[in-house]
């Protein structure tokens, strides 16, 4: 479903991604862990070309998104994204945040879009917030709305870029619960995260990234209980025993 081939990304002289290749099948839930600055977020952002790879290819449903003739906007409709800082639109209500893209891009009528939005709001447990502006929401609520907004486009895959890193500890669970539900429904997900419990219990596959490469790619049980690489061992020791 998603295939990355020999991705490189440089920021000036800084090499952030060095030859990353990855194949993601439908229904996989992939947690990407690793130290700060290892290129996790950059890699995720290359998958919908929010970040322009320096070289390499990304195929989504077989289409090369690096092809200059491709309509990247059509591809992005299939790839939902959730950000660390939510990035809700402050000038729009919760309902408008969710219905904007489906109305403008999918040709839905207002009733259809709103019906879909209310179903999603119910799913993330925030039906009563439809008329509220984002500034009135807590961090956890904002992130749940951001997930609903991405889901409103009915994407085939969801990218999560550290979705709980900016949240108060108490609010992390409410967001993870929504993500767990999504995983149970069979959504294909790539999640950059520092939540090791989530990576261990929910993911079907865990990638450990370090200095721009994927050092380890394994089932969660294997990676957490029997890491092969010394750097992985060191990282896990530090984050699990803090």
């Amino acid at each position, binding site marked *: 479903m998603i295939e990355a081939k020999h991705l490189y990304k440089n920021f000036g002289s800084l090499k952030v991604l060095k030859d990353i290749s990855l194949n993601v099948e439908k229904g996989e839930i992939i947690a990407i862990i690793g130290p700060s600055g290892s290129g996790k977020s950059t890699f995720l952002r290359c998958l919908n070309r929010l970040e322009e790879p320096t070289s390499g290819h990304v195929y989504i449903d077989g289409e090369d998104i690096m092809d200059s003739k491709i309509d990247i906007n059509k591809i*992005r409709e299939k790839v939902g994204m959730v950000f660390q800082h939510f990035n809700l639109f402050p000038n729009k209500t919760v309902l408008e945040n969710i219905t904007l893209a489906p109305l403008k891009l999918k040709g839905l009528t207002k009733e259809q879009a709103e019906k879909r939005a209310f179903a999603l709001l119910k799913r993330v447990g925030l039906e009563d917030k439809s008329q509220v502006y984002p500034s009135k929401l807590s961090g956890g609520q904002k992130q749940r709305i951001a997930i609903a907004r991405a889901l409103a486009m009915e994407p085939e895959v969801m990218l999560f870029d550290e979705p709980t890193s900016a949240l108060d500890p108490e609010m992390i669970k409410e967001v993870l619960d929504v993500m767990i539900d999504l995983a149970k429904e069979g959504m294909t997900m790539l999640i950059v995260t520092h939540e090791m419990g989530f990576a261990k219990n929910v993911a079907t596959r865990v990638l450990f990234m370090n200095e721009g490469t994927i050092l380890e790619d394994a089932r969660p049980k294997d990676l957490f209980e029997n890491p092969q690489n010394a750097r992985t061992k060191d990282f896990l020791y530090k984050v699990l025993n803090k």
Partner: protein
Amino acid sequence: MLEYLEFLKWIFFDQNRYVYILDGLLFSLATTLAAAVIGLVLGILLALLAISHFYPFKHKKGWEKFNPLSKLAFAYINVIRGTPAVVQLMIFANVIFVGYLRDTPILVIASLAFGINSSAYVAEIIRAGIEGLDKGQMEAARALGMPYSLSMKEIIIPQAVKKILPTLVSEFIVLLKETSIVGFIGGIDLLRSANIITSQTYRGVEPLLAVGVIYLILTSAFAVFMRKIERGLRERD
């Protein structure tokens, strides 16, 4: 006291001299309004050029980051902001509008000169407003599949307008006051009307004060009006 009021009455109302002030006021307001419209339209265009992502040579080594549109906009802004308005005004009147164009009304020349002058400042205000927004807003819109133009229209511009408005208002207040240099090219505005009354009455203080008070009333009224609009915009979020 009563004597002085009689005196004021003589200065301003004898031979209907207040009409000079009314005519001057009309000239100042018309120039400001026309210049503001020109400045706003040109300024928006310039700002869009300045922030554009137009890299025609991105496959040529060393030229990847060369954006001719943005370079052009910045060069324009630099020249206009780097020279005094009065110099620009006089260049327009004495260098450009000569020969066939000699009979162009001063109102038109002044509006163009002030409009072009203002556009550079407006462009910088708008550019700073847009670039000051959280980058995540554009990213979120693009990640949903919205094209650049739609993201600008729905997300970026509405937020930028709110941020820009107060600075834009002060730019237009500056513009109104700046039109008082139009006397240099023979325009008869509010300030010149005071000079005319002085020349007829030999009283320098009262006409100047009267004109100053009129400027103050105009700018204050404008500021209050805009603050009302701002408050209305802010209530939404």
